[in-house]
């Protein structure tokens, strides 16, 4: 079983690394999708069937589309398909700072978690209990995430809908 995990981890990391290394932006995005699919395969390996399929549905199906649309529809300075080259020191510093903050938060969460192996093998969580937990103990978190996404959606609509007055109303 561990060998499968090693293969999955290697696949996911390799896809992510290739996504970094490639020049054409669309290829990067597609490699990123591969990495997400690798994460879904990891969930499947860990026995979290529902989470794995939700990962595929949301990340491979929807978020990938958002990324691709963003890549294709945003205006680039240079009219090329390539990722921007390595910029000035400021850009590198900002990237490193963001990476450090994310790594710090994640590291804290991982180190702070109680990862002692439990004596009893955990029963796989069935979908019904997952739903009950989401609507019960984790309802506030779910609501906050929902509100956040709604705000983001409305913001996106406001940004996108700039030419509402100029367009003729065509009702048929």
């Amino acid at each position, binding site marked *: 079983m561990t060998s499968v995990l090693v293969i999955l981890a290697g696949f996911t990391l390799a896809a992510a690394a290739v996504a970094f290394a490639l020049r054409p932006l669309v290829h990067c995005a597609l490699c990123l999708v591969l990495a997400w699919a690798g994460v879904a395969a990891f969930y499947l390996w860990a026995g979290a069937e529902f989470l794995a399929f939700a990962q595929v549905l949301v990340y491979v199906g929807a978020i990938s589309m958002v990324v691709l649309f963003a890549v*294709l529809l945003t205006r680039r300075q240079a009219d090329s398909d390539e990722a921007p080259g390595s910029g000035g020191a400021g850009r590198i510093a900002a990237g490193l700072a963001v990476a450090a903050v994310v790594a710090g938060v994640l590291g804290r969460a991982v180190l702070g978690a109680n990862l002692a192996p439990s004596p009893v093998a955990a029963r796989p969580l069935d*979908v*019904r209990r997952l739903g009950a937990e989401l609507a019960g103990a984790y309802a506030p978190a779910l609501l906050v995430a929902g509100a956040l996404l709604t705000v983001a959606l409305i913001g996106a609509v406001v940004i996108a809908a700039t030419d509402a007055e100029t367009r003729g109303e065509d009702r*048929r």
Partner: protein
Amino acid sequence: MSAVPTPDSLLERAPLLVRDWVSGLFPASWRWLTGSLLAIAAVILGFGLLFTLLTLIERKALGRMQNRPGPNRTGPGGLLQPIADGIKLLVKEDIVPVAADRPLHFLAPVVLVAFTLLSFAVIPYGRHLLPVDLASGVLFFFAAGAATELAVFMAGWSSHNKYSLLAAMRALAQLISYELPLLLAVVPVVMLAGTLSTAAIVAGQGRWTLGFIPHWWVGTPCGAAGFLIFMTAALAESNRSPFDLPEAESELIAGHLTEYSGFKYALFFLAEYLGMTALCAMAVTLFLGGWQAPCVWLQSIPSYGWFFLKLGALLALLMWIRGTLPRLRLDQLMRLCWKFLVPLALINLGTAAFWHLSAGWEPLPARLARWALALLLVLGPFAAIGRRLGAGVERRRYRYAPS
């Protein structure tokens, strides 16, 4: 309500017996593999053959609707037309544009067909015929379907043709938009059945009132609304007329398929028909009782017979719609989705919640009130939103030529 002991005739168990006989030919340590491989082979062969048959039936049926004979030169009555088409597409030159992104151009049809085939894994074809029994089978089905959008994008982008790319973006806008009502229409059934497993959903519909009124989900107000929304969205998801804008032959030179030829082009069409069949099979499973017989005393007919009968009826309905309705425009398409189907599907969730909570209303007046309220919840918003959307639009008049 009557629960009937499940009849398990020889015909019902025939596929199992064939499977056991074939895997009996292999050593015991291989049996686990042969079972899965046989299921895969049966799905690919069965639905591959169904695809060839469907192309012929569809062309014949469309021909009848348009007062022409349809294909009738190849073999008796045009029966060999699919084989002729297959040979033609196989031996055609495979052209790849010079500027195309070769790996992606090659991968797009492969990814599309592979993911479409995956979705057949969780459909229960009969009492004993379910390739993979997953606890969240419904979610798996839609996850596999969602990945096909990626293939459409890959096809459009890798062709390095601006018309292909534009058409692919239009197709994606349509696919993503209609994914929403498609998923929302399924939720009431999942709520009422209380499970995401396709086997359990079909088993839960195996009851009859008085022996001849089946307890299929399409027979409840929220189920009926869900079924209609699901089928409309399924039409759009599989790029079928009247939502066939992504590859409108007469306007877009086949959209994202412009730069594809030969067998890759055939693979795209295979995936389209397979996707249509898969969505219809899911509609049968969720709303029309899956492999359950409509009456108690018709259970002697094997369950897979019922399944494929219902599947055939839905596919015929789609062909009929293709022969009847004209194509929509892109803005009409989006309006229908976001202003009509999505609100109705959301309201339908409330109807399903009401139906679930009022399940205990036993006496006859209470039960009548339950039906009346639920119907009001379904039909009221339908009429209100429809009237609002139709305001200011003249009623279209049709005039037929005098005969």
